[in-house]
């Protein structure tokens, strides 16, 4: 499929539709999902579009089924994805753990809502831990990308497919209910990454070669140690090459706001307002939550006086910033439990209290 009808033209698009459309353009051959607010538009869009394009689509019976159908599809070398939200992504943790062990390029779109438990359908960043620390068993990482605009929902959906295949590791697009539901002008374009050759490992039938087995079962402890070493060598390469972040006004900043996703937009405005008040503020926005920009934060910690993370959760990323900073300067938290991000004015006033 080409973007002929869409290229070079801005289209006002809802985040969820932007993600779905980008997945189609990225060459996603199969979609499996179970509805949950606030991301149901992704499955709705895919149900029609995938059938129109004669690609794979299943209204899965559960999120357990959806993630495992996705594993099945990507094991054959094609691009495939599922999408879900919070309490239902919780059901996928087992599958994600298997997919890392199987080294399979699963793409998961996780559109966060309020939790714990059923929580509510309001936007949230409460699944930072779920995505970056994982709820599945064993040692593993998911590649986690956090868009802050609807345009980035497109850009990073492409990137999720690419990185997943490049490293044969599940990749998560960690959006939130606000991004999923809001509309902004976006530009679609052709998939900008090279296609990855999957023929050396994909299950396509043992024709003219040995039969392949994709499995995580490692009955012997020694073998598992070897595998884990290899897996973590891969994570080292990812950490060295794929860290992405944005920083504004950090050079002379006395205080650096660290914020990801849709919340970072308000943090950015707050940073500008602090500057207008004569406070030297900067903004640091991790785009990849794994790999996390530890190194850069550590560098900045040597010259700034304070970090403040701005999050819509009870304080999750703040822990990673503290680890990166390693005591070089204080790291504070400005947060809100759930809902749309705190306003710039609220952020400014809370930061003024901290100074």
């Amino acid at each position: 499929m080409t973007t002929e009808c869409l290229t070079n033209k801005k289209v006002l698009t809802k985040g969820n539709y932007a993600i779905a459309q980008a997945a189609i353009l990225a060459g996603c051959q199969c979609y499996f999902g179970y509805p949950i607010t606030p991301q149901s538009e992704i499955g709705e869009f895919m149900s029609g579009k995938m059938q129109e394009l004669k690609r794979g689509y299943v209204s899965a019976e559960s999120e357990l089924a959806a993630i495992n159908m996705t594993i099945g599809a990507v094991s054959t070398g094609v691009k495939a994805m599922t999408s879900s939200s919070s309490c239902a992504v919780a059901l996928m943790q087992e599958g994600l753990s298997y997919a890392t062990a199987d080294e399979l390029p699963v793409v998961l779109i996780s559109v966060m809502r309020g939790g714990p438990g059923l929580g509510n359908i309001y936007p949230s960043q409460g699944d930072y831990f779920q995505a970056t620390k994982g709820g599945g068993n064993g040692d593993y990482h998911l590649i986690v990308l956090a868009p802050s605009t609807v345009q980035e929902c497109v850009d990073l959906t492409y990137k999720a497919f690419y990185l997943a295949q490049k490293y044969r590791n599940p990749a998560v697009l960690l959006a939130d209910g606000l991004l999923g539901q809001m509309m902004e002008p976006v530009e679609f374009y052709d998939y900008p990454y090279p296609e990855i050759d999957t023929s050396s490992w994909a299950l396509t039938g043992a024709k003219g070669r040995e039969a392949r087995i994709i499995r995580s079962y490692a009955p012997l402890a020694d073998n598992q140690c070897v595998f884990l070493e290899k897996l973590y060598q891969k994570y080292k390469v990812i950490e060295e090459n794929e860290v992405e972040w944005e920083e504004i006004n950090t050079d002379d900043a006395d205080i650096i706001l660290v914020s990801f996703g849709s919340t970072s937009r308000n943090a950015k405005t707050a940073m500008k307002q602090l500057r207008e008040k004569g406070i030297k503020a900067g903004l640091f926005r991790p785009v990849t939550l794994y790999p996390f920009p530890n190194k850069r934060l550590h560098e900045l910690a040597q010259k700034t006086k304070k970090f403040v993370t701005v999050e819509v959760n009870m304080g999750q990323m703040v822990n990673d910033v503290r680890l990166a900073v390693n005591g070089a300067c204080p790291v504070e938290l400005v947060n809100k439990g759930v809902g749309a991000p705190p306003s710039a004015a609220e952020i400014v006033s809370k930061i003024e209290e901290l100074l």
Partner: protein
Amino acid sequence: MATQVFKLPESLKGDVKYSFCPGCDHGIAVRLVAEVIDELGIRENTILSASIGCSVTTYDFINVDALEAPHGRAMAEATGIKRARPDKIVFTYQGDGDFASIGLAESMHAALRGEKLTAICINNTTYGMTGGQLGPTTLLGQVTTTSPTGRNVDYYGYPIKIAEHIALCDGTAFSARVSLDTVANIRKAKQAIKKAFEVQIKGLGFGFVEILSTCPTNWKMSPQKAHERVRNEMMAVFKPGIYKDQT
């Protein structure tokens, strides 16, 4: 001149140690599946979605591409494989715990969707790999490590008749229950397995075979006694037969 009358099916790996317990019917079932794959000439175009349980190492024995699924999710992974590569022959090899307990939702929905898949399910009335606990097919009165005084209805409810349930799904094209207790029944079992693959190849729908099997180790019986139990006790509840055939 010597005539070869018996050989290893091409779809079985010859150079591996088969890890099933002596007298267990898994070995026969795996061999029958391999013979069917050979006879249909589909080995190079077939993908196995393997399960968890005693069946976990099936991929070490059957010489086809294979993906290991988490416990109960073999039908979901098979669905994903088939939707991504509709030209491939995709099958699962599962135990009753995997297929009809933890994976019941995936199994029923694959059948209801009429997925062009083949599922082979071993029914040995127990969770074999974990040491003989009560499973979904454990018979009333049967003693297991988690039903020490025998399965009673008050605490455990009733065993599931899998082949009958799968036959009720509109997407199912073939559903049968077979046993491996006699040579004649082994022949019938092979025919059923073949049909379960053929309905997939012909695009008719979901193909299913439930195989009544022994577990001499956990039943604490000799292989001979175990087969008598299949005949006398299991078949009384799980009646062999073809429950649906749309070929």
